[in-house]
């Protein structure tokens, strides 16, 4: 089974801090994604990457950046954390084969910015 591992289940940080969320997948998937999930809003795509060192903005990239130095690892960075970034963050991966493939998700990081 594909395993997507997010480094922390719960994280508490302070306003203005630089925050790193890490995600690792073990199935050699080309595509990796970062979402945030807020009640009533579903999942919103922040950034995605379809190859090492490649990244594309999703629907809500403001205040975030990403890094993909290795195929298996995709990091989300909050440059200067703000309270409105308190949320559940979900990482996902999928293979880049012919046709659109289902995404495999980690268990999420619940981030609180105080």
């Amino acid at each position, binding site marked *: 089974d594909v395993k*997507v591992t997010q480094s922390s289940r719960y994280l508490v940080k302070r306003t203005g801090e630089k925050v790193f969320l890490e995600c690792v997948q073990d199935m050699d998937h080309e*595509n990796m*994604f970062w*979402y945030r999930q807020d009640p*009533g*809003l*579903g*999942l919103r*795509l922040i950034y*995605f990457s*379809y190859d090492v060192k490649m990244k594309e903005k*999703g629907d809500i990239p403001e205040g975030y950046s990403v890094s993909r130095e290795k195929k298996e690892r995709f990091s989300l960075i909050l440059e200067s954390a703000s309270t409105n970034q308190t949320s559940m963050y*979900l990482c*996902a991966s999928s293979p880049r084969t012919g*046709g*659109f493939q*289902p*995404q*495999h*998700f*980690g*268990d*999420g990081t619940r981030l609180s910015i105080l």
Partner: protein
Amino acid sequence: SQQGEEDPQALSIQEGENATMNCSYKTSINNLQWYRQNSGRGLVHLILIRSNEREKHSGRLRVTLDTSKKSSSLLITASRAADTASYFCATEHGNKLVFGAGTILRVKS
């Protein structure tokens, strides 16, 4: 917004009953996917239905797709307490998935 919308927002049923959730979307699609999310966990892929398919089954799950109405439904038959979760539809747009806000299903034992 291209986002799918699930209906109802919340559903509460007794164990053994069937649960039906609906999803509407706005633009043409290649496929539509359904995911389940247990409380505090990530999403798990349930089923993918392609635009040229009208119905698909997987165990106790039945998904229908009506591209003329831009809608899909997920039916869970003979529900169990373990089916309690949030259910999301997702549509493909370019190389991205766009998720709806989800239906919260509660199955009472």
